[in-house]
């Protein structure tokens, strides 16, 4: 289990390769990567605030819960905070499992919890000014399936 909360960028490919290489007894590796998306076609930057201390604890709790719920070999979570430009990677999760169903479900589970239960908040700055991103009902609803 490897959990990192950091300001600096990470190399998605290098992390994915390192994670996959560490598990020859696991047949399936799934990764998810979230990228700053230029939604309104005018995004200048995204600022991510978090709650140091609680963030690490919450991510670790959810990773442990995933290891309990699914037949998993390992979990990696990297999440950035600070100011990011469009196209930059915000975060990644990776899961390794003997079979693909567990790897997929664990990655989806982690993402659903990360979205609504890890203490991160996003603020977008466009040409019109800055505003906090509102939580989506569909993200809250997604938790209902677990």
């Amino acid at each position, binding site marked *: 289990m490897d959990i990192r909360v950091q300001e600096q960028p990470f190399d998605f490919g290098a992390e994915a390769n390192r994670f996959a290489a560490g598990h020859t007894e696991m047949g399936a590796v799934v990764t998810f990567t979230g990228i700053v998306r230029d939604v309104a076609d005018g995004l200048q930057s995204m600022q991510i*605030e978090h709650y140091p201390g*609680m963030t690490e604890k919450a991510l670790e709790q959810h990773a442990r819960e995933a290891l309990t719920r699914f037949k998993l070999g390992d979990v990696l979570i990297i999440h950035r905070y600070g100011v990011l430009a469009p196209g930059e990677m915000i975060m990644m999760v990776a899961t390794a499992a003997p079979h693909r169903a567990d790897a997929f479900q664990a990655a989806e589970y982690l993402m659903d919890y990360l*979205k609504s239960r*890890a203490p*991160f*908040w996003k603020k977008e700055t466009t040409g019109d000014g800055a505003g906090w991103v509102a939580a989506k009902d569909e993200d*809250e609803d997604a938790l209902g399936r677990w």
Partner: protein
Amino acid sequence: MEVLYFAWVRERIGLPRETVETEAKTVAELVAELRKREERYEAAFADLSALRVALDQELADFDAPLEGVREVAFFPPMTGG
């Protein structure tokens, strides 16, 4: 008791954290005390349905007891990932 504010709660109140002397027995009682202080607190806590609270870095409810709690944090619904 340490009280922390994040995202727009922090911006409305105008500071990220403060030490609060209180006899409040629950989160709701603490919120009621804070709202009476100043207009900026009233603005931040006007709609509790738009707020979340954590006690000692664990998510909690507004009717949760404060006994033994050292750190209370208020913030909007989280938007990670």
